[in-house]
């Protein structure tokens, strides 16, 4: 079992002929993801790697291929429109990898996708993977292995670091979900926690947050009030100066709000195990998994 994607996921890739899009499409296909269509306006009728048909529009691609998920690798100025095109095409999940989407674009996009009941993951995210079943995005497949831990994170490489350590310690994952580092994203921690709580195969959850905003604090309250499964959390950015954007557009301490200290405190108060270092996840998760 897993969340959001599994072996039946049928994927359409927007920007399949671009530099990033083509590289990662090959990676996803190698991993076993069912890539059923690609979209590049003007290249409709061609095929990718001689196997994946390319269409001019997402709507055509979805109708012809039966895709239920879209992944976006298009440059930032076009990403907002690409998300809305996907959301209007009939897929139920849209994953936007693109970094640099203007936040005011996202205020419109968010309203658009919510109105249609479509789940958006990202933008500015590494996507997600359900080990052994399917991956959508750019998370390296070989660092993951199937198992009982759900992983959710605002970061890319920090997730890889933690997942790699879990895998090296023999602890596998149901799904690893990167929700992205932007201030407005389609899926938040609570959405993922809710999905992991419902997924019978997930026995414990590892979450990696960072400075900026209040998503982690709200997630902590959700864990306290609504969840039975154990959660271990980490917050990056304890040494970040206020008012500076730490790489991710959303990783900024505004005034006195959104600090690592306040997030860690709310984790502690809500019964979330706090990993002080990324490497602490292994022991903390191990201690919380049911003994076999």
């Amino acid at each position, binding site marked *: 079992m897993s969340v959001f994607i599994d072996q039946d996921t049928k994927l359409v890739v927007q920007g399949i002929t671009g530099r990033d899009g083509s590289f990662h499409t090959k990676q996803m296909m190698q991993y076993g993801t069912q890539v059923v269509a690609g979209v590049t306006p003007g290249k409709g009728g061609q095929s990718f790697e001689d196997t994946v048909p390319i269409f001019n529009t997402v709507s055509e691609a979805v109708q012809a291929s039966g895709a239920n998920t879209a992944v976006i690798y298009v440059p930032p100025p076009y990403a907002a429109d690409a998300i809305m095109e996907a959301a209007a095409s009939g897929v139920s999940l849209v994953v936007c990898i693109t970094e640099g989407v203007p936040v005011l674009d996202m205020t419109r996009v968010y309203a658009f996708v919510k109105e249609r009941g479509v789940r958006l993951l990202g933008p500015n995210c590494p996507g997600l993977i359900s080990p052994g079943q399917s991956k959508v995005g750019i998370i390296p497949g070989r660092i993951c292995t199937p198992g009982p831990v759900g992983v959710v994170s605002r970061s890319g490489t920090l997730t890889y670091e933690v997942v790699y350590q879990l895998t090296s310690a023999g602890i596998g994952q149901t799904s690893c979900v990167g929700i992205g580092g932007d201030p407005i994203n389609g899926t938040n921690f609570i959405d993922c926690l809710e999905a992991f709580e419902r997924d019978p195969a997930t026995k414990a959850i590892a979450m990696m947050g960072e400075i900026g905003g209040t998503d982690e604090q709200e997630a902590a309250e959700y864990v306290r009030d609504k969840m039975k499964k154990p959660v271990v959390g980490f917050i990056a950015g304890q040494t*970040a100066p206020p008012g500076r954007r730490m790489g991710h557009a959303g990783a900024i301490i505004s005034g006195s709000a959104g600090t690592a200290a306040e997030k860690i405190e709310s984790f502690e108060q809500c019964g979330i195990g706090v990993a002080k270092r990324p490497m602490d996840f292994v022991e903390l998760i191990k201690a919380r998994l049911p003994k076999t």
Partner: protein
Amino acid sequence: MNLHEYQAKDILRRFGVTTPQGEVVTTPEAAREAATKFGGPVMVKAQVHVGGRGKAGGVKFCTTADEAYEKASNILGMSIKGLTVTKVLIAPAADIVSEAYVGIIVDRARKKPVFMVSAAGGIDIEEVAATTPEKIRYHAVDVRYGLMPFEALELGFFLYQDAKLARAAAKVMQQLYAAFMATGCSLAEINPLVVTPAGDVVALDGKMVVDDNELERRADLEALRDVESENPAEVDARNHNLTFIKLDGNVGCIVNGAGLAMATMDLVKYYGGEPANFLDIGGSSNPEKVVNALRLITADPNVKAILFNIFGGITRTDDVANGIVTAIKSNPLKVPLIIRLTGTNEEIAMQILKQNGLSASSDMDEAVKEAVRLAAAASGGTAA
């Protein structure tokens, strides 16, 4: 990207907001000239990208042109929170009946632009929010419809009981919203919005922060950037597509990915060290990026040890290794280098480093500990 007050006011004026026409000057002589031209009393205001200019002595009221000269010569060259003042705004001083606050931010939780208005203006709005939250009214805008006239008027009446003033304030809200959207802002505020004895509603100060993600498609906004007001190393980094933020410690950090970069800095601190910087070389593994990153870090005399932390997912660790070797050959390091790399092409990377007399660890914890220890030793102390 922060805009200067004078830039924000220029934009607000274009959208119809009444704000005193000031003049930006860089010398005390020009300050006197501008004050003479305006006639009456003027304000001399430092143009720097920090809050609390007034408290730091960067904003002064002057009754005469000579006084403007004197105050401008004090403020120009002054350092406010580490930034040197090179420009001052000379603006006619206004008589004030009341001061209000009007601001818009992109609210992350509501995922909408949100107005914040308060009749308690002229001071730090965070302080008002913390001590007297009932004095602030919030209003989230549905961007598909924009700020509707009745909504703007509700906000206007929250500020003023007088209908004429409320209508004037409502107009300012609409104008501020239009400016905010058209300028791709993440924040725009007027503080204070004042009522003059003549009954005019006037913006005495303006602040705008442009979303960095707008700059690529908006050359008109990028042109407003004041490179002089930024840290030179950070400008250099941006020109080479690196994200760099200078800090005060002695362990230089070069990491791929923002989350891992923050976690690495935190781990340096955890082991008793202090990070010298945040530096994200990003997902691509162009060796040139590594060369530029090392150049930036070694330019900081506080750096006593350099730590690479690379998790090769998309990034190929052999590219990073090649970058390190190239950089060191052309510019040998004077401080110890600690490399941690793991992931894509790790074996090749280790081989490249070994052939060039370097070594690397695959363990993040160990590498950070070692970097902290070496930096402390070089600084003549010991790690805590």
